[in-house]
């Protein structure tokens, strides 16, 4: 059970519980590498033309607090680069499901922040800039970067979660 998630435990899909369990067992660095590789092969294509100047070389950490796991990476001109460990410029902390819901654009980051489900520490300006830049890219555009079947699966998952929110 995710303490701060708004979904009751019974509604957590078995798939997401399974993914969480699997991720929770992985050591952080290879998991980050897997994430970074997948990211660079897919959405980076759609994101690389954004105004990243000033963000190159900055380091980020995403802490998935219910696994628990911390990923460290930096932004380069070729995409994200996994880091072993570092003193990051910005740290985002949230639960696994909230991060998924943020990525699927189902949740307003500020609302999560006000409700203490998202924590942004370190250089706030960089954190807000990344948030605003990503908000500026349409979800459909990002989706185009996934291979056919996978894109459909993402859309399916999004619809399911959206439906749950409406209930």
């Amino acid at each position, binding site marked *: 059970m995710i303490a701060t998630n708004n979904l009751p435990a019974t509604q957590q899909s078995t798939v997401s519980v399974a993914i969480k369990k699997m991720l929770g067992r992985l050591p952080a660095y290879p998991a980050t590498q897997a994430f970074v590789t997948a990211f660079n092969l897919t959405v980076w294509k759609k994101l690389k033309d954004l105004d990243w100047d000033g963000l190159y070389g900055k380091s980020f950490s995403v802490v998935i607090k219910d696994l628990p796991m911390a990923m460290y990476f930096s932004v380069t001109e070729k995409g994200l680069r996994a880091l072993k460990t570092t003193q990051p410029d910005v740290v985002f902390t949230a639960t696994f499901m909230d991060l998924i819901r943020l990525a699927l654009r189902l949740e307003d980051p500020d609302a999560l922040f006000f409700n*203490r489900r998202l924590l942004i520490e370190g250089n*706030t300006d960089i954190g807000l800039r990344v948030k605003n830049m990503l*908000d500026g890219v349409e979800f459909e555009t990002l989706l185009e970067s996934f291979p056919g079947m996978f894109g459909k699966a993402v859309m399916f998952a999004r619809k399911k979660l959206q439906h749950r929110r409406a209930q």
Partner: protein
Amino acid sequence: MIPIMDEVFNARNDNYYHLRRACVDMGQGDLCLARFTRHSVFSGVAMAGTLLELICPAGSLPALKAAIDHGADGVYLGLKDNTNARNFSGLNFDNKSLAEGIRYAHNKHRKVLMALNTYPQPATLARWQQAVDTAASAGVDAIILADPGLMAYANKTHPELRLHLSVQGSATNYEAINFYHEHFGIQRAVIPRVLSLPQVENVIRNTPVEIELFGFGGLCVMVEGRCLLSSYACGDSPNTFGACSPGHAVRWQQTPKGMETRLNGVLIDRYADNEKAGYPTLCKGRFEVQGETYYALEEPTSLNTLELLPEMHRLGIAAIKIEGRQRSPAYVAQVTQVWRAAIDAVKNNAEHFRAQPGWLAQLDKVSEGSMHTLGAYYRPWK
């Protein structure tokens, strides 16, 4: 003139945009336009044509589309610099996204308003004037201005461009609003969030200018636009830098005592684990005053005037504005959806209007602060 107007309203009792179209269609463009775009529209007509438009915030193209798709009559947006009061990194529009946003909105017969609501400095005046030119050539439906110098420039250089008075202009009485109207052709004024509804009514009864009110979102009530608190703490004035409490000065940090938020090192608040957090604007901090720690200036609540909608409708408010250009498309979609439903309900049957609990719950979910307020609009003692 009057029969023509009647016909126009019967055909398209909708909004200015349609009205202008209708006038042109009827071969009366010049005649009608002369009255509508440049001079006093007698208030009855202005009000009948534009009652309760829903104007929503757009910090990005996806937010703009979310607003339009969920029923906004218009959006307001700004350029990627300090010519507007939401100058946050990564936010706002460049020429390309502006053109696409306008195309998207106009295809669906909705309006795009551009906020140019900060104050130019002598050395940077050209940037603000250029922003006015950009707005005019891009084809926005109106620009929202605070600085009289800029109004004069816009009025002279682009006489066809519709001008709105920003809340940052801080005009709280009809004489001030009429002054802007007479001198610069201001056609709509956004009223600062410090007046009670009877005071708003007094303004409406005495001006030909359309009145727009804030309906929902974060509050900034300290003599809008003139507040110096943020400038005092971090050296950047909202009126020239374009942001109150800019991101570069903000720090959040989890400590053993709770989550601390600081503005340029100044401790603004410390939240226990179960408390809702807020953005560290100085006016909404908790400070120790004579041994007591409390919100010494203002409580961090969100404005929510949903239940005042029937009264706003009766008064003939031209538009309701939703705050939050710095917020995500998800926020814009959720808030626009609720307000569209509420405004439609009021227009259908104002007498039996009730703010539905589901609406309020959805708005509360995205609000800053743990409660919402009717703000200054509701002052029973007034």
